[in-house]
């Protein structure tokens, strides 16, 4: 039951999708109401009365980047184990109850958060809260359940990563970018460390981080806020806050002193490409302007295929690229990446592709922002506030993601306006700042050279 969004998003061919997500402003479907329970649990209610459905999510402010050294994968492993038994439910009963009530559900882990959700008929919200609040603190893990689930995760790692050279390459590049920070370790964990995780590791992690004052409840759908508050008090209210929850302080990156370049070879690679990432500014509470400028810079540079700057230069004019893209990972707890890739056209070498990319970046800095292009992006940002009303789940996610990465409700609601306020000058300032070669990792992926001949 784990969908790890971050793993797939980091893979090259999902990069553009990722970007669009970050552009999507978190606007209300209808009304947004927020509360805080006495035990510290935050509550966000998003009303959408078009259909008698509700999305119920609990987000924990803990992810893989909070794991202790040597215990990589424990956040995600625990996420799986939350579908086992509690003091009140036998193993697997959680999923049975959701299904028997016509609901669907799942969970996902990322660097900064772990989240659980169900989608169900609105009149079953109380029941979902009852079982979700139960597993917040009453988990009961037996050895018979814990070991097969670890094998499941090894198989999950096989499926997602080890059978896919692009995923292995992504993991390798992340590790080069972050020498000291947890973003350098894959969310699913290193294989050799997953294999050593124990029941006690899971219990320790659970006791340390799963508490109402480290959680956010997001309810979106056909609900009345007062009713949600009443149910939340009934079910989540009795959960006991932990005094071990502290502001997250993670090891930060030392100064970056030299560009990193890496060549990754795997005989399964049929399509080589070059990809580069720079360490970049994330959205910070009360200070989202630079991240917003970078978000729009990424869109200008490579967000929309042939109409973007790299698309025009490398695909259409120079014909050296089959595909190009750029993205900015704006919503994260710590500094994250600003990235771009070039898939070279046939008979164009990776060196030529990288040179063309560098020349295009220089040209962008020299020429400045195309105002008409910026205007079209602003039009899309403006329209997205309407389209967004059609996507209950995505709005719910943007609140969960924002609140678990250090933002406030106010920051999340301000984001579309912050994006709209970005000027051409802001973009150029942010671009000059982020394109620091010393803070970059450039990777080539290709088949081994003897095999390629």
């Amino acid at each position: 039951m784990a969908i790890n969004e971050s793993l797939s998003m980091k893979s090259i061919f999902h990069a553009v999708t990722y970007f669009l997500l970050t552009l999507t402003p978190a606007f209300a479907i209808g009304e947004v109401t927020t509360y805080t329970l006495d035990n510290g649990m935050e509550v966000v209610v998003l009303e959408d009365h078009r259909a008698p459905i509700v999305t119920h999510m609990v987000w924990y402010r803990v992810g893989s980047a909070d794991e202790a050294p040597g215990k990589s994968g424990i956040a995600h492993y625990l996420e799986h184990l939350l579908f086992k038994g509690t003091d009140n439910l036998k193993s697997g009963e959680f999923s049975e109850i959701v299904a028997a009530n016509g609901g669907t559900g799942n969970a996902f882990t990322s660097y900064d958060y772990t989240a659980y959700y169900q989608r169900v008929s609105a009149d079953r919200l109380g029941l979902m809260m009852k079982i979700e609040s139960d597993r917040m603190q009453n988990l009961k893990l037996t050895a018979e359940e814990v070991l097969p689930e670890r094998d499941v995760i090894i198989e999950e790692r096989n499926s997602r990563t080890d059978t896919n050279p692009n995923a292995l390459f992504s993991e390798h590049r992340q590790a080069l970018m972050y020498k000291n920070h947890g973003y350098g370790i894959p969310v699913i964990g290193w294989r050799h460390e997953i294999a050593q995780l124990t029941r006690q590791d899971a219990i320790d992690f659970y006791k340390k981080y799963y508490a109402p004052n480290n959680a956010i409840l997001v309810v979106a759908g056909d609900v009345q806020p007062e009713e949600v508050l009443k149910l939340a008090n009934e079910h989540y209210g009795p959960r006991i806050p932990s005094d071990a929850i502290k502001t997250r302080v993670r090891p930060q990156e030392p100064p970056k002193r030299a560009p990193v370049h890496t060549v990754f070879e795997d005989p399964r690679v049929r399509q080589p490409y070059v990809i580069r990432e720079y360490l970049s500014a994330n959205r910070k509470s009360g200070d989202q302007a630079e991240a917003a400028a970078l978000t729009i810079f990424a869109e200008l540079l490579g967000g929309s295929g042939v109409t973007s700057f790299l698309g025009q230069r490398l695909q259409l004019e120079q014909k050296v690229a089959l595909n190009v893209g750029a993205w900015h990972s704006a919503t994260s707890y710590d500094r994250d990446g600003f990235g771009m890739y070039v898939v070279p056209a046939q008979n164009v070498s990776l060196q030529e592709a990288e040179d063309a990319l560098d020349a295009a970046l220089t040209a962008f800095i020299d020429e400045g922002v195309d105002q008409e292009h910026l205007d079209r992006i602003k039009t899309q940002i403006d329209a997205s506030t309407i389209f967004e009303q059609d996507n209950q789940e995505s709005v719910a996610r943007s609140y969960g993601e924002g609140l678990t990465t250090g933002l406030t409700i106010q920051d999340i609601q301000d984001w579309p306006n912050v994006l709209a306020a970005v000027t051409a000058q802001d973009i150029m300032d942010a671009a000059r700042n982020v394109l620091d070669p010393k803070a970059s990792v450039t990777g080539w992926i290709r088949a081994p050279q003897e095999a390629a001949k």
Partner: protein
Amino acid sequence: MIKLLTLCTAILFAAIPAKAELNIQEVTSKSGIKAWLLNEPSIPMISLNIGFRGASTTDPDDKLGATYLMAGLLEEGAGNMDATAFKRAAEGLATSFGFDSSRERISITAEFLTKNRDASVELLKTALTQPTFDDTAFERTKAQVLSIIARNQSDPEEIASSTFNALAFAGHPYARPYRGTTESVTALTQDDMRKAHASTMTKDRLFVGVVGDITADELAIMLEELFGDLPENGAPLPEPIKFQAAGGTTVVDFDIPQSTAIWGHQGIAQDDPDFFAAYVMNRVLGGGGFTSRLTQEVREKRGLTYGVYSYMAGFDQADYYGGSVSSGNETIGDAIDIIKHEWDRMAAGGVTDAELDAAKKYMTGSYPLRFDGNGKIANLLTYSQMNDFPIDYPKNRNSYIEAVTKEDIARVAERILHSDKMRFVVVGTPVDVPSTD
């Protein structure tokens, strides 16, 4: 298009919400072009979903991949616009288009603001009716398709499904790679694009679903505007075909730490009286969710896989019942044995009262969750028409599920499940899983 009624994604996408008052109308333009409409005026936007049946199945044998490439070129230049001009026009309207083609469906989507409706429709019409297939866009897009084909050659799931289709539908268009091969795509010409366009995007195979801020009268005019100029008839669609592969196992050697397997045998047609019994049976056997027998036995109890699923796969002209699993090279043999055993157990004994009850509760209760966004509903409206569902299907669908009995399932399970006829394709380096070819 493969209609995967209960694929793994069902757990996420599943749920069509049959809001009881879901008021779907059939709208007909003055020249007879039909669409299904759900008027939903609460957000000033419109979602449009267009499907053309047949798609790559009508590619001539020496032009494999023509329709797939053609569909990709629709947004790469039309009328007096080149690719850049077309896309800039869409961006300026904040209109998003999607142009795609799968095995037997060309799928075109559009999402636009009510205030930009006329300009968006005009832009879309240009793409549908006046694609230019100009030199530079043609060569560029062809190179992208060749890159996708190359990449898929090292994707275990792609290798498995193309091998499986070639065995299951030998001699039929379904056996062919719908994106084409490196050789066939390399040889395609712009003239092939014009021929594919004229023979696949025609009124006789057009299906339209619309959701949003538009009335039936407005839609009737829009349909005429968008599709009135399309040709009447296209290339002949393929004939029905039974599942061709005999029971056994085909191993494709590929150096990866985990084996991917898919399997199937003859399935059951959608108009079969026992179709819904089979559909409910599949939910219990392996149709997604943590409660299925396959997930319980292969994943939960033994930790042999991250995911195992069974599904009823319906092509327009074929039906098979099958599934998929991935497991380590050392354990894939065990996983396959368990799956076969569960096949036999279901064939011999059907389901329990408790399983039937749980399956019905899930299937009926989750149905409304599918109707949760204009674009998704528009897709469902098109999909329903392409499957020849009646327009009241969403209203009645749950009653078909409710009517299924334990006896119905026992009967259909015995009839369609045959472990000796299961054809497996395994990609990887599986231990102790011999090829029977």
